[in-house]
């Protein structure tokens, strides 16, 4: 890092760019969340199941995010681990109304945390307990308990319930995430 870079970084002039990975089971609302975080003119009106992955960009508090929106379908979940190395933060989206597959989400999370590219690193984890508006949705506390998040101590994590369609709860989560990412960059 050159002297100029250091100086501009210190003064906060440089454009901060962060790569985040968005994972979660299929139909949990990953693409809808990313779509809601994008600026108004880039928003798409219809969300279809992601195939493979899609790269999206959005900005929050002067930080430019590059989001790798991974597909959550069983056959594409093998792709996730190839992007663990280069990401600086992970957003894990859970469908809090899908009680049946909460165990599957926990299984995927355990595999993510134990992966060598994630295990030893400082990676902030943000959990969205999505679809909070549905009648049989679990609260964020219950989702956290079901995923066994209390055992996760070596990484900063935060869970918030959200509704990706209206955008409720998203800002709170992304705010925390931006702070964490900025801290880790300093």
């Amino acid at each position, binding site marked *: 890092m050159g002297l100029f870079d250091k100086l501009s970084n210190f003064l906060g002039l440089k454009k901060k760019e962060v790569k985040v990975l968005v994972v979660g089971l299929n139909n949990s609302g990953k693409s809808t969340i990313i779509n809601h975080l994008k600026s108004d003119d880039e928003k798409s009106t219809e969300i279809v199941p992601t195939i493979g992955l899609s790269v999206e960009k959005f900005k929050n508090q002067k930080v430019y995010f590059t989001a790798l929106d991974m597909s959550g379908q069983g*056959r594409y979940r093998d792709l996730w681990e190839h992007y663990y190395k280069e990401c600086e933060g992970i957003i894990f989206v859970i469908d809090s109304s899908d009680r049946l597959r909460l165990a*599957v989400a926990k*299984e995927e999370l355990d595999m993510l945390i134990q992966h060598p590219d994630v295990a030893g690193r400082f990676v902030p984890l943000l959990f969205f307990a999505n679809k909070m508006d549905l009648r049989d949705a679990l609260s964020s506390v219950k989702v956290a308990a079901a995923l066994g998040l209390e055992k996760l101590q070596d990484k900063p994590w935060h869970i918030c319930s959200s509704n990706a369609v209206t955008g409720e709860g998203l800002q709170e989560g992304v705010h925390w995430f931006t702070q964490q990412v900025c801290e880790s960059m300093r």
Partner: protein
Amino acid sequence: MASLRISLSMQQPWIDAYSDPKAEIRTFSSCLTLGDLNGDNEYKLILADLGSGSGHVKLKVYKGTSLSSEIVLLDFPSAVVSIYTDTNEPRIPGLAVSCGCHVLVYRNCRPYFKFCMPSIEASSLEADLWRQKSQTTQMVRLLQELADEIGYSNLSAPSQTLLALEPNMRDEFLNKNRHHLIKKQTVITCMTAIKKSLSDEKSVSCIILATENYQVFILDPEAFVIMDKFPVPCVASMISALGLYAVDYRVLLASRAGKIFLLKAGVTVPVAHLASHPVGLILHTLSFTIATMNGNLQSYSTKGIKQWSTTLPGAPVDVCCVPLQGLALNLVAVSVSTDSGGSILLYSGPQLMHSFNTPTPVSALVFGRYGQEEHALCSVTTGGALSVKLLKRTANFGNGEKAPMISGSQPHNIKLLVPKKTRLFVEQTLRERDQCREMHNWFQKAWLDLGVSVSEAYLNGLRSTSVCERESLKLTAQVLGLGPRLKIQLFLENLAPDYVPAGLAVTFLYDPKLYTIHKTYIPVPMLVPGLTVSLETLVTCELGVASPLQVLVFASRLLLTAVINMPPATATLV
């Protein structure tokens, strides 16, 4: 066995997503199915709960971890299938339930259509009886005679009811039903579905029904009319079908007596006759797998040739097909009931790939899409517990260790290694033909010689050894000292486990010129089995010459002899 150990050491490939031990469901595999009932891509579990006998039979629809709706059925269902009946959007499947002689179709959990099997004319004699308006007692008597003649089960339903009623109720019943036409209704025994013309997941399917009156029907789902009707030689109790109706299809039927028939191109052919009753059957493209009541899982080719058979660790209760395209595996799940509860075994061919235990035996199993998950195994135990297991994405059922195929090779296929006739063999045969008389004489002489030598050996044995029935003694002798005075030590042991000989004594045979034995007669104390008795006596050598000495053990007769080779004495006592 090796495979069992592999599967046990392998990590558990199933995630326990949901289990409700208090669901109180009584059902069978034929009444358990999965389907996207609301067209929202969220697959539901549909099961017919037969209840405990007191309440109504209910069709229950589970969505995720909760019961989403219940439909009361008026009769016991024989099978439930979820099929697409039209090509309308949104794609909502119909739920076909076979109940008695009806097929009830529900859509969106509401009654949609009721198909009734065509009734059959009752025998003309029976119809005449009903038309005659005779007295009740006479009517009953005539019907009874008819029942004896053609069989009770071949009577129409009103006749059967009349005969089964209490005598005082018969009058009323007869007056009420006299004007009805006498027709027989058949009962649907089993039902399955095949795709009509496209093999897509959501294409239109046809219903295949087997009935109690030896027939198989194929229904068109769009208009609910009978497209095909085949007579079959048995009452099918189980059915499995494969293929496309418009192209080519096969229907496998299992009769209650254990006979297997294959219906193909309108022709029914018997393919196998099982030694035991079938519990479940699965039709594959070229073969079919059957679990039988005698605890075997067997596979036959569609031509009826047995391919393999493997013994299950318990009594099978249910089988279900577990196709795993991602792993290129087509497993068969078998639920068995064992002494300690139940277990579910996954077989790939005859090879056991994985097994896990359940606290109670599983009575109904279904594998397929449930909720958003593609690979879900839903099971209902005999205790009424419902459980849903999801296959892990990383599940791996071991990729090698294929056991050698236990193939039932035909006896006529085994080749015997018969060597060619050598010249030696041919010459010997010729010689035998020419000189048969000499050869026979030689053989007779040699045979006599053998007899003589055997008899001689036997006589010799009788003379030299004593053979007794129960006494078995062991004698060891030891000579101590340098001479001329020696000590003979004898160790006597009783080897018989259950007999204590009494009154034994030991004496010696020797040359009195050479030796003087101090105690020539030694009485033996009681010989307890396992204990060694030590006896000893002093011997004085009279001359410097060594000679063998014989020890005799006797009771009323001689029991045991032993020869002691005495050492040469160094000097004589002066």
